[in-house]
């Protein structure tokens, strides 16, 4: 049974190599290629789900090459699987399956490389989720990155993809090298690469500057990958131009993986050494709130549907980060459920956008206004997914967001609830505005923003023919994903189970014992008391309220100009982001500048917050 751990990475990699080797033979047989890729992704999803269920009662460790640790020193590389890590990997595999099914009829002339790169991307994600070795984490991070850069530039005949891929690759590579520097730094101190072993070492020694610097450097690459402000600029450039099925993975899991990496690094290496200081928690909460607000404002302002969805992802990434930064089991559990719910509905939204692009040849909201009326099923799915994004009960997003709110409220941060409510309404409202305008022709077309119109006009159809009807293989995946997001929300036992998994994830001593001593931890020690996971009437009210708010905001945006009182030509959202827009310049030099400045500031704050400056 243990061999599952090796197979979940080896199978997609071998399949990618096989597809590539057999490329010339398969050139006329797309179906074989598609079926292989879908089959492999689905099989991997099932294997990971099995691991997830199996590890619910205790994490499991797998040592590659059979090199088990002796006397607390690891000489090999291990996979450490718990329900949260394998669950996230499983979500990725599900989304790859959906994306590959969608592209069955979507891309007509794709070469074998598309399938191979998607499977390699998946293998990178899985390795990243499960590994227990910090350098191995970097290797899979890079593998994921290289496959993602190549997939972003999949349509090199256009300008946008090339430019987006360049910005993506350069910013993320800088981040990866900073992370590697951090790994080298911590290795120079501890002489270990196994995360548990490093954690044990630095916890036994007094906290000093090297540990703080290494922590910040290691997470810098992950902060960039997860598009936390001010490291987020590359994301909209890349997400807006990547092929739609690839966007599903970028928004659905890749951003979240960066956050998972931060949580993993914190809870298996640095958490105890840093002493779970309130200062650290507050720093990351602030980053999360800043990201959530910035993303939501940009999202509402946007007219290019893929960019709009990308900014909504940034906003959600901020909320996930805040959930993790609460350093409570319920906060982490909320983030996990929220990631799953968001990943499913966001994937559905991107796939529906892909259908719109396929049928109507545009992603410009203004131009599309009222032109999607005949896409009835797509419209229903898109609207449902939009409501899910606005946390309508009983979607999984509602549950996850509710847990983060509960935990924040219980820990003296009730204002976060209000801020996040506003962000959700803004982002959800923007998506529902698109739904109402494009699919139902409600109200007036939103005004054209000349700059955005140019960007949206550039986006030509990714497909060649077959625009008369939507193939079933394109509409079924988003419909199933939305249903799955609903199912997550109605599983009654989900809350306690995920919270138990979060307690396990946050139990660093338990993690260390599992990895280094092969212990089976049946009862992990909670870092903070478990909180009630039941859904109260107030929760339902809040969720319904946020969805209702989003609907009202969407309608207001669509009918604004018809309101007699305010007929001043004013458009909601205009002007809100003007000062910020200048930062989103598209020049990679600027982006790297902000990364450097942002890291310098974070470093300074960390150093001060931990109070080390005096003790140098």
């Amino acid at each position, binding site marked *: 049974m243990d061999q599952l751990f090796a197979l979940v990475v080896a199978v997609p990699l071998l399949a990618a190599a096989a597809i590539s080797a057999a490329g010339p033979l398969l050139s006329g047989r797309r179906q074989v290629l598609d079926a292989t890729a879908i089959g492999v992704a689905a099989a991997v999803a099932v294997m990971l789900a099995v691991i997830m269920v199996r590890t619910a009662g205790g994490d499991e460790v797998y040592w590659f090459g059979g090199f088990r640790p002796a*006397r*607390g*020193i690891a000489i090999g590389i291990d996979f450490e699987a718990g329900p949260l890590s394998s669950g996230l990997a499983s979500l990725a595999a599900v989304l790859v399956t959906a994306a590959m099914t969608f592209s069955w009829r979507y891309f007509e002339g794709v070469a074998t490389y598309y399938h191979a790169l998607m499977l390699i991307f998946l293998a990178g994600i899985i390795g990243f989720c499960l590994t227990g070795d910090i350098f191995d984490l970097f290797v899979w991070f890079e593998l994921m990155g290289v496959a993602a850069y190549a997939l972003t530039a999949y349509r090199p005949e256009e300008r946008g993809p090339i430019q987006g891929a360049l910005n993506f690759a350069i910013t993320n590579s800088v981040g990866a090298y900073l992370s590697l520097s951090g790994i080298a730094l911590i290795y120079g101190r501890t*002489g270990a690469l196994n995360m548990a*072993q490093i954690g*044990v*070492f630095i916890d*036994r*020694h007094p906290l000093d500057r090297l540990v703080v610097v290494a922590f910040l450097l290691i997470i810098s690459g992950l902060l960039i990958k997860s598009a936390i402000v001010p490291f987020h600029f590359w994301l909209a450039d890349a997400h807006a131009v990547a092929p739609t099925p690839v966007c599903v993975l970028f928004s659905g899991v890749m951003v979240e993986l960066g956050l998972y990496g931060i949580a993993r690094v914190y809870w298996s290496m640095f958490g105890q050494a840093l002493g779970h200081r309130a200062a650290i928690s507050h720093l990351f909460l602030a980053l999360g709130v800043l990201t959530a607000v910035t993303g939501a404002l940009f999202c509402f302002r946007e007219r290019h549907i893929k960019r709009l969805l990308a900014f909504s992802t940034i906003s959600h990434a901020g909320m996930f980060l805040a959930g993790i930064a609460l350093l409570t089991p319920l906060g982490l559990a909320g983030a996990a459920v929220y990631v799953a719910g968001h990943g499913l509905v966001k994937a559905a939204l991107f796939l529906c956008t892909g259908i719109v692009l396929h049928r109507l040849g545009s992603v410009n909201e203004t131009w599309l206004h009222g032109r999607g009326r005949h896409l009835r099923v797509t419209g229903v799915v898109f609207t449902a997914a939009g409501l899910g994004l606005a946390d309508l009960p009983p979607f999984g997003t509602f549950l996850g967001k509710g847990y983060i709110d509960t935990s924040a409220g219980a820990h003296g941060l009730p204002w976060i609830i209000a801020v996040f409510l506003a962000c959700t309404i803004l982002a959800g409202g923007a998506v529902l505005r698109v739904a109402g305008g494009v699919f139902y022709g409600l109200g007036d077309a939103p005004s054209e923003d000349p700059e955005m119109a140019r960007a949206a006009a550039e986006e030509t159809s990714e497909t060649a023919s077959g625009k008369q009807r939507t193939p079933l293989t394109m509409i079924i995946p988003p419909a199933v994903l939305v249903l799955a997001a609903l199912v997550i929300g109605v599983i009654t036992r989900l809350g306690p189970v995920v919270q138990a998994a979060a307690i396990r994830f946050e139990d660093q001593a338990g993690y260390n014992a599992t990895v280094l001593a092969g212990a089976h931890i049946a009862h992990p020690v909670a870092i903070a008391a478990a909180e009630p996971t039941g859904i109260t009437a107030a929760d339902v009210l809040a969720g319904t309220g946020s969805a209702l708010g989003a609907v009202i905001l969407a309608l207001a945006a669509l009918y604004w100009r018809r309101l007699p009182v305010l007929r001043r030509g004013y458009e909601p959202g205009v002007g809100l982001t003007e000062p910020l827009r200048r930062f989103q310049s598209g020049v990679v030099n600027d982006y790297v500048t902000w990364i450097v400045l942002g890291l310098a500031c974070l470093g300074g704050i960390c150093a001060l917050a931990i109070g080390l400056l005096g003790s140098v």
Partner: protein
Amino acid sequence: MTAAVVTPYTVPVGMMDALQITILVLVAAGATAVVLVRDRVRQVVVLSVYGILLAVLFLAFQAPDVTLSELTVGAVALPIVLLLALAKVRKKEE
């Protein structure tokens, strides 16, 4: 694992031979030169020299394996790939 890891080979601190210091200075200068040379083709040549300097440094760090890699990749393969790319984009410039 014991609290403080006992180093099996205790060596005096701060012993660095002159060779290592010299090459480190050269490497720092080389990196600066690579960045500051703005002529593309010349920059690739400087990069190749920088690759050789790094290779020598790695030899001084007792890493012959990495030396060999750095020589084949940093000093030969990458400059060639870069020159090919430059040849491709050269035409429309100036």
